[in-house]
């Protein structure tokens, strides 16, 4: 009896200790994650002068003027629509083109499927950033440097390997009988795609959109070598302007960083579940 009591006691103590350690770790990392972000937003409401006097206290005279000026200096009124266009355009492009190819690979079939499909799968692990320089030379060669079409093409192209892979795997799970019976009823392949495959492939379309929207919205390395004109730039390029010579104008820099951070934070807060699921599904391979 005494022995038993002792083991349960040890068990209980061990469980309490484990919980204590678990909570400590979680709280520590949560603070480490959120405090820098909180610090940034808090200081974006201080004048640079007030920031230099005290960085750790709450703003005494909160001001919105940093935002007004950062918005102007960063040309964000131009860059926001661009970012939206690139993100929405390229994401739609990736989803549509991937699903079309996935349908052909999974349900129509041809001798060409194996080599082409495999070439996409290989592409998942090729880091687009390693092709930055040849891509820059290529868009110059094609005369599409400083054009929106170049940005869209490059973003679609870099999103396709994972897109085609996930789409093909998903569409494979759609029963053949559905497609065959539609064929017997005389439906063409594009009609089948619209009426049967597309609605059924919505989950994978959502996953792909989720993965690509945040990637493209935040992308910097490639667009940095594709455009140099302000009218074509995206938000990350505009925010980067606040490094360098503007980086000691802290108030404005912090406002610019906050402006850059908010859209994706909202996106995350709204779609957290889908994002988490999409990351788990998409990262396994790539």
């Amino acid at each position, binding site marked *: 009896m005494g022995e038993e009591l002792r083991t349960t006691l040890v068990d209980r103590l061990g469980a309490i200790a484990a919980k204590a350690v678990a909570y400590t770790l979680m709280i520590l990392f949560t603070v480490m994650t*959120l405090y820098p972000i909180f610090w940034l937003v808090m200081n974006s409401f201080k004048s640079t002068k007030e920031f230099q006097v005290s960085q*750790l206290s709450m703003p005494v005279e909160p001001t919105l003027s940093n935002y007004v000026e950062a918005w102007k200096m960063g040309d964000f009124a131009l860059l926001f629509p661009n970012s939206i266009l690139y993100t929405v355009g390229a994401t739609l492009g990736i989803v549509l083109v991937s699903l079309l190819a996935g349908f052909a690979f999974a349900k129509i079939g041809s001798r060409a499927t194996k080599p082409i499909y495999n070439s996409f799968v290989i592409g998942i692990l090729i880091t687009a950033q390693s092709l930055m320089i040849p891509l820059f030379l290529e868009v110059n060669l094609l005369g599409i440097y400083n054009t929106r079409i170049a940005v869209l093409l490059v973003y679609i192209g870099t999103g*396709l390997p994972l897109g085609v892979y996930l789409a093909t795997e998903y569409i494979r799970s759609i029963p053949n009988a559905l497609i065959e019976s539609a064929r017997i009823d005389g439906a063409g392949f594009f009609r089948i795609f619209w009426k049967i495959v597309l609605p059924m492939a919505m989950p994978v379309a959502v996953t792909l959109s989720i993965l690509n929207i945040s990637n493209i919205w935040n992308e910097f390395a490639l667009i940095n070598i594709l455009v140099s004109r302000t009218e074509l730039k995206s938000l990350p390029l505009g925010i980067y302007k606040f490094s360098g010579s503007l980086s000691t104008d*802290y108030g404005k820099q912090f406002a610019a960083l906050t402006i850059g951070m908010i859209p994706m934070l909202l996106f995350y807060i709204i779609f957290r579940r889908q994002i988490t699921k999409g990351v788990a599904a998409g990262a396994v391979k790539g």
Partner: protein
Amino acid sequence: MQTRNRIRVEEGRAYWAMVLPAFLIYLLVMAFPIVLSIVLSVSNYDGGKMFGGDAWGFAGLRSYARVFTDPHFWNALKNNAYIVMISVFGQLPLGFVFAYIIYRKLVKWPGFWQGVLYVPNIISVIVVGLLWQTIFSPNGPIAEVMNSMARAGFQSKLELLFTAHGGFTITDDLVQNILNLAGPAASEWFTNPLPELKELILSYEGAPHAELLGDLCNLFVPKWSPEFLTKPNLAMLPILFVILWMYTGMYLILFLANMQKIDVQIIEAARIDGASEWQVMRFIILPSLSGTIVNSAILAISGSLSSFSLIFAMTGGGPSRVTEILSIYMFNNAFLGRPNLPLANAISLIMVAVSFLLIGLTKAVEKRYGGKED
């Protein structure tokens, strides 16, 4: 026969109409650049018009020879390896621990912790890079905390000195002690410290005591400087820290998603049979995640190849090129100073080769673990 043929043709047309958009864009964006960099890496192309401009031609493997003998290349490669290491030995174990804590319900509100720890992933790397650059800078909050601590320490020592010397009576002895306390900072301000400082202190006669103390602190307390940003052998540390800060949440999600695929009954049965929490982790959870762990390591390597933006924003590869990774090294060779495009293309191909190595690795892993991770 006729109809079957017609169906064949229709199938073929539909197939290519659906595959070609993807395939052509893919060729244009991924395949053609690789071909282009193969050609240019063995050429003497130096910018300008590729066709119809100055003639350029075959130059052999001299760009590769230059890359492999360039110490900056090996430094960049080493930094890539550091990034892989912080991922494999930092993010992976941490992500695993967090996922385990949540999976085994050691904490309440699982969704909250998971949601918060993933936040840094969603923010643009440019924002993250510039934010941390400021935090680590000599004007940042870390410096402020360190400076105010140093100042408080110095001031209390000063006060002790004054009290020990009987308050505000200025003697040579007191001034000498202050100078000793100040150390090398004193000789920065005075050529002949003892008389000059004494004169300075005497000029405060009548003024509030605190004013003198404050000014002495301003004069002598050394400003804390984030040495790790300027010291070459430490400059990678903040970058590695930020990478750890940013991506641990992603591995948490990966591990958690795969833990949730484990049959709960197995764990419950093991617990009933008397297995300890530790044994459950060691003999059930860890083995069933081996594939995920290897895949995450591969992810870490490909992540190190794509860390351009973060380092570009944080250091740009500086100070004096010590924080370059392969992609920054390539970028700098192509766009800074005298561009060397063949060299940059050779680096590009070396990075692609690393990617192909990864593909081989993945294939081997799939063979070993049955590729069951998806």
